[in-house]
């Protein structure tokens, strides 16, 4: 059997499984809470899988191997930032978020600071950043389908979008998590096939490190092959902020059965992800650098070529299809995030409830489902033209989300003193400065290329929060009560 045939069979099997899971999850949907937070039914095992799927972004393996091979393993994997971000969620955010009974981060922003403006602003940031990311993901997925199934780009885009929209609109978070687990199993299958072959070719841990260091001196050093110490530190800082404000991850806390499960799931998930990346990025990245680096034109080809060198065509197709399947797991979370920002945060919490409009839960469930369809349609249309700019903006999306939410979450969870006005100023000011800096970086302005936009945005956000708090008053005790029970 040829590689393409195996690819089509495995991918077809994968698509059937995720659509069936979506259909079954659809039967459990009665209310808005069922749709957005899966009825808060997740136990520890499901939470760990859901968190892991949320943390491992779309191209975790493909781009992970590429970047690790290129820049050096220690530099590119900021494990300290991962555990630092996880510690913040574990010790400060998880319990309070779960106990607050909200659905989304805009719920937190609106309730904690008693502000409809903050709720609406946060919903817009979540919706826009997720949709931009979604557009890039849909294009990436369409390219994968194009190669695997031998159909043209437009057909691949239509097919991929329809499948995602159908199962997310039917099953909400429950469908997303179930399918993420299936995607994970496919990814593991793809990676485990490789183990004996890579081991035979390059040897064990110590041997690989010795070889790679001999070929590329500095690969195992903290700053890697080409970074300065300053660049490394800013990279670590950006990832620390990105992990503690990772929307797909933080939002999962709402879906746990209780606050203990929400908290305990965090370190276990992050530990498993780190072990996973030690093999899936560090070891394989070093192997790719030793074996195939001289033969490739762009780093993205590192993993596919490694697979092609080591495996037979049939096994190679199996491994690549597994990885490609898993690389799609970010798309559904993004659809869900942007849908919830529009249907739950903007429509229900910002427009309906403050104006006394009451609707049945069934109506909200229908609105939620339509919001997924509409977001999917917008992203689909935007994904048709080749907007190179979108791909470049995506690489800065973590900076926008970080400057919008890092200080409001961190300070809002720990201090009763911080005011609504300070949070508004910090979040809006941080995002605006980040956007200006991104524009500068994209147009290669000299003032913007020296520092990462996220660092500048965070500095402005922190400063505004501090200064404006000094001149304004904290929110009322009633509003504080949800997050500081002793205050009410």
């Amino acid at each position: 059997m040829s590689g393409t045939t195996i690819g089509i069979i495995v991918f077809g099997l994968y698509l059937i499984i995720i659509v069936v899971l979506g259909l079954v999850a659809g039967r459990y949907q009665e209310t808005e809470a069922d749709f957005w937070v899966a009825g808060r039914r997740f136990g520890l095992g499901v939470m760990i899988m859901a968190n892991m799927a949320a943390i491992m972004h779309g191209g975790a393996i493909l781009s992970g191997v590429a970047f690790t091979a290129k820049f050096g393993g220690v530099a590119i994997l900021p494990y300290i930032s991962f555990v630092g971000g996880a510690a913040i969620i574990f010790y400060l955010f998880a319990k309070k978020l779960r106990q607050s009974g909200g659905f989304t981060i805009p719920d937190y922003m609106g309730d904690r600071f008693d502000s409809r403006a903050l709720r609406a602003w946060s919903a817009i940031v979540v919706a826009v950043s997720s949709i931009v990311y979604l557009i890039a993901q849909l294009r990436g997925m369409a390219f994968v389908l194009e190669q695997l199934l031998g159909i043209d780009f437009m057909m691949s885009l239509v097919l991929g979008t329809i499948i995602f929209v159908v199962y997310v609109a039917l099953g909400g978070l429950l469908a997303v998590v179930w399918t993420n687990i299936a995607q994970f199993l496919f990814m593991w299958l793809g990676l485990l096939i490789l183990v004996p072959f890579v081991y035979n070719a390059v040897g064990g841990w110590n041997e690989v490190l010795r070889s790679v260091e001999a070929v590329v001196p500095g690969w195992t050093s903290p700053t890697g092959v080409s970074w300065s110490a300053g660049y490394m530190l800013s990279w670590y800082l950006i990832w620390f902020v990105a992990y503690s404000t990772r929307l797909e991850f933080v939002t999962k806390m709402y879906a746990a059965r209780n606050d203990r499960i929400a908290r305990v799931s965090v370190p276990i998930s992050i530990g498993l992800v780190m072990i996973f990346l030690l093999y899936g990025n560090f070891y394989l990245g070093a192997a790719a650098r030793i074996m195939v680096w001289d033969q490739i034109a762009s780093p993205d080809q590192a993993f596919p070529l490694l697979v092609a060198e080591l495996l037979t065509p049939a096994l190679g197709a199996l491994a690549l299809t597994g990885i490609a399947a898993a690389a799609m797991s970010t798309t559904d979370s993004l659809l869900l995030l942007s849908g919830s920002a529009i249907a739950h945060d903007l429509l229900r919490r910002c427009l309906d409830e403050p104006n006394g409009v009451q609707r049945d839960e069934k109506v909200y469930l229908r609105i939620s489902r339509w919001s997924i369809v509409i977001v999917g349609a917008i992203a689909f249309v935007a994904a048709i033209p080749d907007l190179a700019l979108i791909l470049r903006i995506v690489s800065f999306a973590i900076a926008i989300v970080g400057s919008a939410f890092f200080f409001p979450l961190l300070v809002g969870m720990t201090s009763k003193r911080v005011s609504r006005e300070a949070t508004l100023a910090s979040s809006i000011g941080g995002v605006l400065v980040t956007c200006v800096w991104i524009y500068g970086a994209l147009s290669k302005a000299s003032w913007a290329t020296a520092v990462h936009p996220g660092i500048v945005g965070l500095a402005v956000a922190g400063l505004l929060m501090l200064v404006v708090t000094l001149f304004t008053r904290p929110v009322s005790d009633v509003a504080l009560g949800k997050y500081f029970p002793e205050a009410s």
Partner: protein
Amino acid sequence: MILGLPAMSFWLLIGIPAIILIYMLIDSWRIMTGRKD
């Protein structure tokens, strides 16, 4: 060299993260057994 990595790299990549992680896991155990709120 520790585990084939320069000492500084080892502590950044594995050592310090592992210590923080183990600390969190111990706290997780205490949360699950009701000894920590």
